[in-house]
C-alpha cells in the first residue's frame, strides 16, 4: 500500500493505483478526456493534469502511478488554469460547430436543426415540441419572425438558406403538442404587458408550474403584435395563439394598468414587459440579469431597450421568466455555463462534404403563396435540405462539457489556417469527422481490441497527425462491430452515432403519446 495526500486529504491505496483512481477514492473529482478504462492508457490530452507539489511538475493523473508520500494538488487555481490551457489548445484545433449557426443566431436559441430533422421524418408533433421548448408563440413567429437563423444558415450558398421560419409555421399550425405544466409550484407571478415579451414570460412560467396572471392596460391581448398587417399575418393567428395560452392556464386582466411596486405585495414575483411606449416606472433595470432594484421585480422586452424583432422580445420574455424562477427557488437554480465551438464560414470545397448529408435542391418557395405557406410535402422536402451542421454529440461531448465548466475560450489560440472539414460514414451507423478529433487514439485501441480487420491508424506525426482508416479504405470497413464502443469512448463529436442524440426523442414521443391519450 502507498499513502499519499490529494488536496491535503490522506489516502492509502494499492501500489499500482493511478493518481486518478486514488483521487476518486479520496473523493476528489478530476476531469478526463482521453482516458478510457478498458484499453491500454496513453495519457495525451493533459486535461486530467494535477500538480505534484514536491516536484512542481504537472502530471497526467490518469496514467501516473501513486508514489509513497506524494502530495498532489488537484484543484488549485493554478491546476484549473493549466487544464483550461489544455482545453483551449485542443479547441484551437477542433473544427466543428457544437450548435448549428442557425440556432446560435436565434435569439430564442430554438433547436432548429432538430426541428428540421423531425419535419423531414414527417413527425410534426415532436417538431412542435422542440419549438415550444424555447418559443412561446410559434404560430405568430411562424409569420412575423425576421428569421436571423436564415441569414446564418450554412445552406445559403448552396441554393439558398433553409426556409426555417415557414417550416416552424407549419409545425405550429399542424403539429399536435399540448403543453402540460409540470408539478404545481404554488407560487404566483404577475406579468405586466401582453406583448410578445409578456406572453413569452408568462408561458414559460406556466410550463414550469407557476401560476401566472397577465395585466394589460389595453382591451386586447397582443401589444405590438396587434399592429401586424393582415398581409403579413392573418388576425386569427394571434387569437389562436392566445387560446392555446389560456388553455395552459394563463389568466388575463385586460384594461388594467398595473403598478409593479404595488403588485409585488400580492404576488411572489412580478415581470414588467410593458414595451417601449408604455410609461416607464421608477424601476432601475439591470439588462444583463433582467432584474430591477426591487427584489422580486423583473423586466424583459422593449421596456429595456426598444426591440425591432418579435423573436428578440419572445427570447427576452423567456429570460426574464428564467430570472424570476431562479429567484423564486431561492437562487438554488443556477445558470449552467455554456460553451459553443464554432468555426466561421464554410470553404467552397467543404460544400460537397456537407451535402453528403443532404439533398441537392434549391430553396423551396411555397406553391400556394406566402400566407398559405408550405404543404406537408413541401415542408418535408425543404426540411431535408438541412445540412445537419449541429454536432451529433452536442449533449454528451466531453470536450464541450469540460470547456463549459472551465470556461475555455476557443478563440484564444485560434490563429493560423483552419483545417478543411471532411465527413466519413459507416452506413447509417457512424459518422467520422476527423477535424473534431483530439487525437486520443481510443478508437485505434478499441478497434485493435475488437480485432477489427482494418481498424484505425495514426497517420503522420505532430500537428499534421490524423486518425484515419489504414490504406485509405472506406470507413465502412474500419470499425465494423467496434463502432458503438468507439462512439461511446470518443471524447468529442469526431466519432458519433449516425442517428445523433435523437435517442432522447423516444422520451419526447412518450410524453406526446401520453398527452394525446
Amino acid at each position: 500500500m502507498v499513502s499519499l495526500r490529494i488536496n491535503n486529504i490522506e489516502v492509502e491505496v494499492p501500489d499500482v493505483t493511478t493518481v486518478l483512481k486514488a483521487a476518486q477514492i479520496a473523493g476528489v473529482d478530476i476531469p478526463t478526456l482521453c482516458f478510457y478504462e478498458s484499453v491500454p492508457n496513453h495519457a495525451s490530452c493533459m486535461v486530467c493534469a494535477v500538480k505534484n507539489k514536491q516536484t512542481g511538475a504537472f502530471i497526467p493523473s490518469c496514467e501516473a502511478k501513486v508514489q509513497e508520500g506524494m502530495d498532489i494538488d488537484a484543484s488549485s487555481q493554478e491546476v484549473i488554469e493549466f487544464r483550461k490551457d489544455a482545453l483551449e489548445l485542443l479547441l484551437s484545433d477542433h473544427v466543428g460547430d457544437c450548435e448549428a449557426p442557425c440556432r446560435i443566431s436565434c435569439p430564442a436559441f430554438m433547436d432548429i436543426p432538430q426541428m428540421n430533422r423531425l419535419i423531414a421524418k414527417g413527425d410534426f408533433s415532436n417538431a412542435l415540441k422542440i419549438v415550444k421548448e424555447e418559443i412561446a408563440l410559434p404560430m405568430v413567429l411562424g409569420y412575423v419572425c425576421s428569421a436571423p437563423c436564415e441569414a446564418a444558415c450554412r445552406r445559403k450558398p448552396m441554393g439558398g438558406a433553409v426556409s426555417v421560419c415557414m417550416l416552424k409555421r407549419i409545425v405550429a399550425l399542424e403539429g399536435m403538442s399540448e403543453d402540460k405544466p409540470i408539478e404545481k409550484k404554488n407560487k404566483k407571478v404577475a406579468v405586466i404587458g401582453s406583448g410578445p415579451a409578456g406572453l413569452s414570460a408568462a408561458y414559460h412560467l406556466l410550463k414550469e408550474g407557476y401560476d401566472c396572471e397577465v395585466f394589460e392596460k389595453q382591451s386586447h391581448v397582443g401589444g405590438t403584435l396587434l399592429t401586424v398587417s393582415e398581409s403579413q399575418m392573418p388576425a386569427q393567428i394571434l387569437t389562436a395563439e392566445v387560446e392555446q395560452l389560456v388553455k395552459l392556464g394563463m389568466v388575463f386582466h385586460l384594461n388594467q394598468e398595473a403598478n409593479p411596486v404595488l403588485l409585488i405585495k400580492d404576488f411572489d414575483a412580478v415581470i414588467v414587459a410593458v414595451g417601449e411606449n408604455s410609461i416607464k416606472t421608477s424601476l432601475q433595470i439591470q439588462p444583463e440579469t433582467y432584474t430591477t432594484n426591487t427584489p422580486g421585480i423583473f423586466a424583459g422586452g422593449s421596456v429595456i431597450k426598444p426591440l425591432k424583432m418579435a423573436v428578440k422580445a419572445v427570447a427576452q420574455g423567456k429570460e426574464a421568466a428564467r430570472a424570476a424562477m431562479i429567484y423564486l427557488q431561492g437562487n438554488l437554480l443556477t445558470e449552467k455555463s455554456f460553451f459553443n465551438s464554432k468555426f466561421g464560414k464554410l470553404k467552397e470545397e467543404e460544400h460537397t462534404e456537407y451535402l453528403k448529408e443532404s439533398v441537392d435542391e434549391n430553396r423551396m418557395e411555397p406553391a400556394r403563396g406566402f400566407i398559405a405557406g408550405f404543404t406537408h410535402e413541401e415542408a418535408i422536402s425543404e426540411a431535408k435540405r438541412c445540412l445537419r451542421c449541429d454536432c451529433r454529440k452536442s449533449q454528451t461531448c466531453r470536450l464541450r462539457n469540460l470547456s463549459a465548466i472551465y470556461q475555455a475560450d476557443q478563440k484564444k489560440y485560434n490563429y493560423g489556417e483552419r483545417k478543411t472539414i471532411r465527413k466519413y460514414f459507416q452506413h447509417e451507423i457512424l459518422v467520422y469527422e476527423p477535424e473534431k478529433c483530439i487525437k486520443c487514439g481510443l478508437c485505434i485501441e478499441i478497434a485493435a481490441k475488437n480485432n477489427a480487420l482494418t481498424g484505425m491508424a495514426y497517420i503522420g506525426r505532430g500537428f499534421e497527425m490524423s486518425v484515419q482508416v489504414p490504406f485509405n479504405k472506406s470507413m465502412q470497413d474500419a470499425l465494423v462491430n467496434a463502432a458503438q464502443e468507439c462512439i461511446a469512448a470518443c471524447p468529442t463529436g469526431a466519432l458519433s452515432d449516425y442517428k445523433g442524440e435523437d435517442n432522447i426523442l423516444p422520451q419526447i414521443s412518450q410524453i406526446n403519446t401520453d398527452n394525446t391519450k
Partner: protein
Amino acid sequence: MTKEMLEIIDNIVAAQGRTVDRVIPILQAIQTVFNYLPEDALARVCETTDISPSQICSVSTFYSQFRHEQVGNHIIHVCVGTACHVKGALLVYDAFRRELKLNDETDTDVDKLFTLNKVACLGCCTIAPVVQIDDITYGNVSSERIPEILADFLQQKNNPGEVSSLGKPANSIVKGEIRIGLGSCCVASGSAGVKEALEKTLNRNNINVNVKQVGCVGICNQVPMMEIQKEGEPPVIYTHIRPEEVRKIIGKHFKPDSFIDELRNRFYNFVENLAIEDVPVATQTFSPEKRDNPVTSFLNGQINIATEHRGEIKPLDYDEYERLGGFSALHKCLFESTPDDVINEVKKSGLRGRGGAGFPTGQKWELVKNVVSDTKYIICNGDEGDPGAFMDRMLLESYPFRIIEGMIIAAYAIGATQGYFYIRAEYKLAVKQISTALEICRKKNLLGKTVLGSSFSFDIFLFEGAGAFVCGEETALIASVEGKRGFPSLRPPYPSESGLWDKPTLINNTETFSMVSWIFRNGADAFNKSGTEKSKGTKVFALAGKIKRGGLIEVPMGTIIRQIVEDIGGGIAGGKLFKAVQIGGPSGGCIPASMADLPIDYESLTSAGAMMGSGGLVVLDETDCMVDIARYFLSFTQDQSCGKCTFCRIGTRKMLEILDRICSGQGKVGDIEALEQLAVKTHQGSLCGLGKSAPNPVLSTLKYYREEYEAHIQGKCPTGKCKEMIRYEIKDDCIGCTKCAQRCPSDAIEARPHELHVIDQEKCIKCDVCKQICPTGSVITI
C-alpha cells in the same frame, strides 16, 4: 501486384521475420528495393506477418525516412541543418524548386528525373550549405549555382569516371604512410576523389606507401586533408587538396621504385622538376609540429578521449585497435573486477550522460544492475537527429571498436544479455562500420556466448532508426525498436526498471560509451582531473557556423565559449562580429557574445537558458537574426513533435504561427507576451524532453534579444534576414553589366546595358541571386 513484386516482398519478410517488431526493418528493405513504399507491398506484408494494417500505416507515416510516393531517378537532399540554415539553405531549396519547375503539390519534376527533399542534417556543417544528389555531395552551395550543379551532376552521371583497380606492388619496401580521412564530412568535401587520385598516382609510379584510410580527422574545415608520414622527415599535412593536385604532392615526397618504364621515368622527371618548386596554389601545407597554423590552433586545447588517436587509426583495423590498447579495459573488467567494481570506477570518474541531460552514468548503471531480471538490455543511442550535430556519426564511423568495448563493459556491469545499436539509417557509413565491427567482434569472441572464455555472454544487434528526432528520447527509442511509432511514454517507470519489452534497459549515448574504455585504461582519476566540479572529463562538440574553422572538437568540460570560438574556431569569418553561439540545437538556446566567458558544463549552460543537448555548437555573427533562429528551431521541433501530448503538438505549432507572423512583418502588439506564455506552458505541459525543451530557443532569445523581437513587431528586421521584411535594391554604382537581369528568375530586372538597373519590387521573389552575382556589390537589401 506483379508476381515479381510479390516474390520480392515475400523474400523480404522471410529474411526479416514476421513478428510485429520487424516492421521497421521490413519497411526499410522494401524501400531499398522500390525507392518508396508501394501500398500493395504493405498490404502483402500485413497478409503474411503479425503486422496489422493499422500498425504498418501508423509506423510508415511516422518516420521521415519512408516515402509513399514514387520518386524521380535522382533524389536531391537539401540540408536544412542549423549551419546550412544560417548560410542560406532555404534560398538554395527555393532555387531548386524554381529550377525544376516544381509546383506546390509535388516534389518531383515533370520528367521524373529529380525529387527534391529537405533533410534535417547531413552532418557536413563545416561546408554549409550542403546539397546531396544521390551519392554526390556539393558543399558551399548558393542559390545562384543551382543550374551549374544540376548540369554537373548529370554530366558526372552520364560520364562516370574510370575506376581503376589498384593494388600495391608486391615485395617492395614500404617507404612511409599517407593518412587520408574518410569520414562523411571528408567524403562530402571530395576526399574520395583525392583518395582515388592518390591510389592511381602511387600505382602508376610504383610507389609503395601505406595508404591509410583513417576516420574523421575532426578538422572538417580543412578537408580534403592528407598527412604524409615518412621516416626521417617531419610529418606534413596538406589541406584543401584537389584530386588533380595529388600527383604533384606525391612527387614531392616519394620517388618511383623502378626506372624501367620510360614513360614513368619521364613522369618522374616531370614531377621532380615541377613539384619541388611549389605546391599548387589552392592547397595549403603545414607541419603539425609547428605552432600557429590553422591546424595546430584548431587542435590546441583539445583533449582526445572519445576521439583518442584521431586521424591516426583505421576505423576497422582490429589489430591496430588492439595494439593501441583496445579491449584491454574489457579484459581488466571481465577478469579482474566485479560488476560493482566496474560501476564504482565509473562513478568515481564522474562521467555523466553525454546525450544532453547529464545523468550520472555510474548511477544509471547501478540502477539497472540492482533490478533483478533474467533478461536485461543495453542500447547505444546513436539517433542523432539534432540539426547541426554530427558527433555521434563521427564517433560511430571512426571508432566502432571503442564504442563496442564500452558497451560490453557496461553490459558486464549491469548483467545485460543483449544489446542494440540504434543508429539513424541516414548514417550509411556509420551503419556499415558498426555492422562490420560487430562481425569482427563476434569472430574474436568479444561478443557471443562466454565472452573471451569468461562466464559472461552477450551480443549486440544493429537497429537502423528511420528518422524521428523524438527517438533520441529513450522511451520513444524503445517504442521504435519494438516496432511502434516513436511515442515517448510517461516516466516513471524508467527504462532502468521497465524498458525494452518491459525488461530493465540501460540506454547511454554513443559518446558516453566511447569514453568508458579510456577511463579503465587510464583510471577514473585521470578522467576526473579534467573538467569542472560537477562536469568531469571532456565533451565532443560539432563546431560550425560563422567561424573560420569548424569541425569535430573534444575539449575539457569547463572550457569557455570564447576559447572555442576564437582559438579553436579561429574567430568569425569574413570580418564580421561575433554575436552568439547556439548550443544544444533545438533543445538548447543561444548564448550571447557578452557571455563568452561562460564555461561550458551542464549546470552553467542550463542556468544560462541553453542546454548541453547533444553538443551541436553553431556560431552566429552579426548578420544572423535571432528571431529567425528561434523560428528555425521551432519549425524543426514542431515538425518533429510526435503529436501525442496536447501542449507539444498544438503548443509548438501555435508558437510557430506567432513567430511566422513576427518574421513576416505581421506581428502585433502582444505577440511577444503571448509567445512567452505559450513557451512556458508548452514546457510545463509536455511529457517528454522534446516538448519540454522545445521552447528553449525561444525563451533564450527572448531573454537576451528581446529588442530584436520588438523591432520586428515595429516592422523592421534589424539584420535584414527575414525575407518578407526586406527588399532588394540596386545602388547607383551599378555598371550596367546586365548579369543580374540575365539571371533573375522572375524577370524583375530589365536588361539595360551600361545603365543603372532597377528591381521591380512587384516581381521580385527575394531569391538573392542578383546580390550573389553582382560583380560590383551594388545589390543591397533594405
